[in-house]
């Protein structure tokens, strides 16, 4: 079995895995990072979104070997030094989650949305950008509010 090596949440990891091992399986089963979820088998739901070198990726549609040598960030690696990421705070503050199953993917997608689209996100942009993420619980209303607020808070915390 081939060896894959990458940096996950700042820590170098390497393991022997079957070539068909998906990144999400590698994270969940080998590293026991179960915050990244699997909600579908057709790359539709976004519950599995992680960052690979700062870019949002669906880890259910990526083989572990494809991210060889990359920096992977999962939901577990978003809070720094015991302090929640502003987007995590925003989801809690604006009740952007109910069952929590879509939440890790939503938050990871939202953070990257801010990387690409900036801190002033209007409702239309947020809704369009969420096209790859499904939530069955919230009706999106509060997710949109949370992302709007979280995006601004990311600027404030970056400036601080």
């Amino acid at each position, binding site marked *: 079995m081939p060896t894959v090596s990458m940096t996950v949440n700042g820590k170098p990891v390497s393991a022997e895995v079957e070539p068909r091992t998906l990144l999400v399986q590698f994270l969940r089963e080998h590293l026991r990072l179960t915050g990244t979820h699997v909600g579908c088998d057709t790359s*539709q739901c976004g519950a599995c979104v992680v960052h690979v070198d700062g870019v949002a990726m669906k880890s259910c549609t990526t083989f572990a070997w494809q991210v060889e040598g990359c920096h992977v960030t999962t939901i*577990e690696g978003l809070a720094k030094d015991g302090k929640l990421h502003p987007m995590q705070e925003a989801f809690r503050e604006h*009740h952007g989650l109910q069952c929590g199953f879509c939440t890790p993917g939503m938050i990871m997608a939202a953070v990257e949305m801010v990387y690409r689209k900036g801190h002033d996100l209007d409702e239309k942009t947020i809704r*369009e950008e969420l*096209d790859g993420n499904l939530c069955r619980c919230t*009706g999106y209303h509060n997710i949109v509010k949370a992302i709007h607020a979280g995006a601004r808070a990311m600027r404030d915390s970056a400036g601080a």
Partner: protein
Amino acid sequence: MTGTGIGAAVRRKEDLRFITGRGHYTDDISRPGQAYACFLRSPHAHARIRSIDTSAAANLPGVLAVLTGAELQADKIGNLICGWMIHSKDGSPMKMAPHPALAVGKVCYVGDPVAVVVAETLPQAKDAAEKIVVDYEVLPAVADPAKAKEGPQIHEVAPRNTIYEWALGDKAATDAAFASARHVTRLDIVNNRLAPNALEPRAAIGEYDAGSDSFTLWNTTQNPHVARLVISAFVGLAPEHKLRVIAPDVGGGFGSKIFIYPEEVVALWASKRVGRPVKWTCDRSEAFLADAHGRDHVTHAEMAFDDKGKIVGLRVHTIANLGAYMSTFSSSIPTYLYATLLSGQYAIPHIYCEVDAVYTNTVPVDAYRGAGRPEATFVVERLVEVGARELGIDPPELRRRNFIKSFPHQTPVIMTYDAGDYEASLRKALEIADYKNFPKRKRESARRGKLRGIGFSTYIEACGIAPSQAVGSLGAGVGLWESAEVRVNPTGSVEVLTGSHSHGQGHETTFAQLVSDRLGIPIENVSVIHGDTDKVQFGMGTYGSRSGAVGMSAIAKALDKVEAKAKKVASHLLEAAEGDIEFKDGKFIVSGTDKSATWADVALHAYIAHKFSGQELEPGLKEGAFYDPTNFTFPAGCHICEVEVDPDTGEVTIVGWTAVDDFGVVINPMIVEGQVHGGIAQGVGQALLEHAVYNSDGQLVTGSLMDYAMPRAGNLPSYKVDMTVTRCPSNPLGVKGCGEAGAIAAPAAVINAVTDAVGVEDIPMPATPQAVWSAIRSRAQPRQAA
């Protein structure tokens, strides 16, 4: 009210673990030595099984067992059951066909589990499942409920595939009302079949412990105790005290995780057979085949009006598809959760409803968010809207004329509405939606070439399910009370054990709010424990918007007992008569003095027991309660949907949504609004996007998220959500329940709006661009011809 008490928008206690990726959903759990299960499912909708050859599969590396219905029977594993008896009009009992967890002799729907492979790894299990050879004799199938009675017979027990032919109401009186009516509105309605699609797929881990001869099941369930009861009492896998069911974090349910499914039974059974924990996690595409679907009614409905626009009668005939087998509560959904709500918010003197439940070669159909009540609301609210148009009366005005105005109100279909103010929610909604300026907006849309429409839905639902005696007399196999235990620790912190289960509803927060409010202690000092049959003695679980009205009422009752006991302790501590002790703001005070003791003092003294003798008082501070409601609760409200339709493409855009709901007393408005948002989204999904489609051979055409359109952020608007409050008189907290309202109200509001925009009487759900475009064309043709 304290900052964290009843009525406060407290941020959720459970969120920290979810936003940091530290929740524990079933698939996140790994047991030492666990093996993996993969099910082989029927590719045919209806077939006899001539033979199954498992030898090639069994010989593959890593395979621990390949099991079929034959082994299930050899081990005397019982069938799955439907727990609600319905009798037909002629008095005969419903025709419940045997439902083995793995097919025995024949398969009845695509996805029917035929065999299971247990292997060291999941890929090995999947590979081996492909090597099982099943020789099928394919039989003709039927999937359409309207054709079921003429279709090939699926089960020996059910001629013409008829499970029951049930009726409610007074036929003769209703017919008489129709005979003397001035106007009758008629509609043929298909309530489209839906796949629930909670985002977390179902999963189960079964584990057998040979040392204690006992089982543990981790399962994505909304009601772990009911699962345990059914698996021990009917399936017979283990006696109840030897089976522990744990429902950890559950990623949404919407009804689909109430039921006892084949897979969890098989995972448990297989764990004993192979002597290893066995894990099964559903794929999404597998979930489309295997999770109970919702709705699927074919209805003809008629509403009779007098010359003043008063409704004088309602007549409904519904064919309800229950799928290939009767799921856990399926029989009750199109009967007592449907026909009993057909009076809506209106004083209708005569109602008669017939429901024929049928088997088809499709996955079982059971409760899905709203369960029967969305179907009832859709019938009533479509008829009222179309009736208003036919009579030339403003739709809100027609509703107003027919509203029930005094309470309690006995409907002709069992229910006694206890409280409400339908006029108030309608008035507020019209104001927020700015109804009076709708014509202006319509003209403005027309200038941009768009058709604008507005639609109303003044819905009612029966929640807080339910008084046990009442449901028992209607055929329920269980009582529908709830239990709670309040454990006060020596340091004064509190654990609440509840039989309710939270899978997104935020019970860890709202239930703690109740305790904080009542005992005057910080909300941080309260933990809510649920979802484990070893911890919570018994409970009926969460569905039917019952956890506030029933689950929290049980906690309130236990808190009463805790307070009474604590007062006794305080009387010893403060050396005062028990009757002189007052409990206020978290303090025990001797009336008329400045002598007092804190909550923590009293909690400690309850346990150290130095101030009273064992003869006088038992040590400790822990009380339990069972709460059985005295009535259903009746949340109601008004939803208004405004749409724009593009006449060239048929595309519908929701441009405004107003919801004014009356949920009684609200514990946490933030959480309640979130429930409304989510409900509306699912209702809009049903109205515009979602449809679980079987073709005439019984193949599921919409078998993945590529084919089944789930609402995405871009399909939905932001909602204006507001409330009116009439207290529920039947429970101590005055709460009614909010979990299903949106899903119940929304479909009718959407279709009323779309048909208003297009100017036709009806458009079938889902109103896809194609359906709307066709409706526009069908409307245009007669005009051109004229």
